[in-house]
């Protein structure tokens, strides 16, 4: 049953309705739906902002002056600079918008790398077991035990070597996040693989004579990935926090090579006490909203994935359509149908 839930329901072909998030959206009701929609809207706005940054931002991220001369430092919000300027003389609105782009890069690179490596290691480790499995589990545990930000700082220093170009900064952040996240994907995929390995359909593939790689890729992998969208969203929010943390501690990207929320927050510490609220508020708000959006999506996917946590529309005994009972009550051929064709109509609707 557990594995069957991932399979598309009813329809012959996979349509857009069966796509991971869309399906959950259709399934949800009430508060869970509200959470999911809010999360999706926030995430959508974030992604759109990142993609359309060159169109949306009034200035470049590293722009200090325009035709009328320099912007000036710590200018309060005005018609020229809707959200004011920073202590370094950059336009806050532009940097917030460009910053979403950096954040998206880091999420994509970090999540992609950790998924590919983590899934591959988890699959091999769980399927073959033995000493390789034991060694990998110990390493994963060791990385788990390490404070992730400290690890990220070390990796950032090793990778970028003190330089801070845009891609250098992004890669430093992404790789350090990757190292921290691999154990999560590794563990989840490994646990699923160990479970699926003992399922009858894997045994049946072995009896048929299928090779190990074929079993791993065709039978185990696709069944083991059902929790990935969930970890993915939760990790994405964590990735942003790590990036912001790195930036805040000064291991981020220089303002001339890219906009980064954590770095801007770091520079605005002194402003807070002198009543200049706009330099810290907006980058901070950017971080909070994106993390909130991604976490809401992740958490509601988590709830919806578990049939016990999923809320459903209540029915009263009166308005239940009687005809539906035949659909699911008898999940297949009934006694009367000697040829089993009777189940033809039933099976389609039964879930």
């Amino acid at each position, binding site marked *: 049953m557990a594995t069957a839930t991932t399979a598309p329901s009813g329809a012959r072909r996979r349509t857009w309705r069966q796509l991971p998030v869309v399906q959950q959206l259709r399934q949800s009701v009430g508060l869970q739906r509200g959470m999911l929609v809010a999360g999706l809207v926030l995430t959508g706005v974030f992604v759109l902002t990142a993609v359309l940054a060159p169109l949306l931002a009034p200035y470049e991220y590293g722009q200090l002056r325009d035709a009328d001369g320099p912007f000036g430092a710590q200018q309060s919000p005005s018609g020229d600079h809707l959200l004011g300027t920073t202590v370094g003389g950059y336009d806050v609105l532009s940097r917030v918008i460009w910053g979403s782009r950096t954040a998206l890069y880091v999420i994509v690179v970090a999540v992609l790398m950790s998924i590919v490596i983590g899934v591959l290691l988890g699959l091999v480790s769980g399927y073959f077991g033995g000493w390789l499995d034991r060694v990998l589990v110990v390493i994963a545990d060791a990385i788990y035990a390490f404070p992730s930000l400290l690890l990220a700082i070390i990796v950032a220093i090793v990778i970028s070597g003190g330089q801070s170009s845009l891609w250098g900064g992004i890669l430093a952040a992404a790789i350090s996040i990757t190292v921290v996240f691999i154990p999560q994907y590794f563990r989840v995929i490994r646990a699923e693989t160990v479970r699926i390995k003992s399922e009858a359909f894997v045994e049946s593939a072995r*009896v048929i004579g299928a090779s190990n790689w074929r079993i791993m890729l065709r039978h185990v992998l696709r069944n083991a990935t059902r929790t990935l969208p969930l970890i993915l969203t939760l990790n994405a929010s964590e990735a942003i926090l790590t990036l912001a943390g790195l930036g805040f501690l000064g291991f981020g990207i220089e303002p001339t090579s890219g906009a980064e929320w954590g770095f801007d927050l770091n520079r605005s510490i002194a402003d807070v006490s002198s009543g200049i609220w706009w330099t810290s508020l907006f980058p901070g708000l950017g971080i909070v909203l994106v993390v909130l959006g991604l976490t809401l999506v992740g958490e509601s996917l988590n709830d919806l994935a578990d049939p016990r946590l999923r809320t459903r529309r209540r029915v009263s005994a009166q308005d239940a359509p009687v005809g539906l009972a035949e659909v699911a009550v008898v999940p*297949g051929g009934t006694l009367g149908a*000697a040829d*089993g064709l009777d189940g033809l109509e039933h099976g389609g609707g*039964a879930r």
Partner: protein
Amino acid sequence: MSNVVEIEDLAVTFATDAGPVAAVKGVDLQVAAGEVLAVVGESGSGKTVTARTILGLLPETAAIRGAVVLTSKDGTQARDVVPLTGAQLREVRGQDAAMVFQEPSTVLNPVYPVGWQIAEGLRAHGKLSKKEARAKAIDVLRRVGIPDPETRVDHYPHQFSGGQKQRIVIAQALVLDPGVIIADEPTTALDVTVQAEILDLLRRCRDDFGAAIVLITHNMGVVADLADRVAVMYQGEVVEQADVRTLFSAPQEPYTQQLLAAVPKLGSGTERARERAARREPGWAESAPVVSARDLSIVYPGRLRRPDFVAVDGVSFDIRPGEVLGLVGESGSGKTTIGRAIAGLTKVSGGSLQVLGTEMVGMKERAFRPVRERIGFVFQDPASSFNPLLTIAEAVAEPLVVHKRARDPRAARAQVDELLEAVQLPRAFGDRYPHELSGGQRQRASLARGLALDPELLIADEPTSALDVSVQARVLELFAELQREKGFAALFISHDLAVVDLLADRIAVLYRGKLVEEGTGAEVLGAPRHPYTQRLLASLPVPDPDEQAARRARWQALRADA
């Protein structure tokens, strides 16, 4: 006699992802004091839901209409359970009605002694002191037949056998002396020999404790053994109600008639086996066997400081071409292990096992792979033996693709269609996903996959034990037909003697890893020599109340001897 339970026009609807589903549609049932009412039906017929309503045990997604009036044992109090909640419901539970679940090993909490768990009900109803509760727990344990209850009361569930655990669960239900006990498939998870004892105990619950029993089961033999009255449920409705003799001798509804006809009966396959034996060619008995086991032993190495577990101990048998060998035994007897060893899924530790000319002792996977092409396997659980993400056609084509008879599943489609037709599934089913098929249909697809490479040997590991009786009958028939047509040799593993008898040319009985008896159906069933086989035969309930009463007497005599 007054009624302890009166169900009036009960309807239960569940909210599911696919919309509301009516599980029970207007059921009326009465249970008189001290009677055993059996509720029978296929899975999904609503029998469990109906019974659970009596205790208010339905999940939140259920919407209930109608009335379930529960009368306390002394007849002083009658309450409708449906609107009750919280404290009121708790007061009813255990006191007026109690429940015995299907799987005794999961019902008991492993971290508490059984005595504590029995006394929990007493404490919940706050009647007795600790000492009194303990005394009562010991007393009830003795009455359900746990030997030495004074010491056993402090033992933990894992220290008891499966049958004893079920006794403890029954003791738990009995301790508050309820008017009615709901027994939901109380013997399904148990071996036949243990089942007979639990049925005996349930009968005593009625006779000695005066409790009415609502027995939910799909096993007609159990019904014939225990029930006073039977209600047949089908698609959420009660289609027939009658006392047990009337129902078995003169079923009124066509559905009941079909249900009874589908139950496999002992001895019905003997004739068929004799016919097949007569048709064999003269030199057949000397032909090289497909599978030949000599002194086969399979040992699971024990963990640290634990002795090794000997699953199969010195078993010898042959399967000749085109022959069906039925392997019978209770759980833990090693029958599945033998099947898995032949398929190369379990390592053989000693003796010799020749499969299609290949020695399995010290077998290398690479060397065995070409042999796999000649072996088919049908698994026990149709729900898990298909990859949920592949369509049926892709799954059936898998062996063809793996052994390079087809390039990809699409190229194999013509062959797959033929196979599906051979197992009487419409071609269109190939495009469905496994969860869109019923259990019986899936098991037929599984058979199609097992036969895809036209194997010389088919291993069927309890292929029908997860299916309803009616579906089982059709799958068995199909199996027999295909075997006749294609002439493959088969190892048919089952715990059900009647099922094995239906198909097998010869029957082998396993008991604790040893082969205790082997012979044709007529020999093994007609004149069993080994005491275990005798016990097994005697404890198998038959779907006929009068005959079952006679068998029960014989079984009790056998047990007294032992």
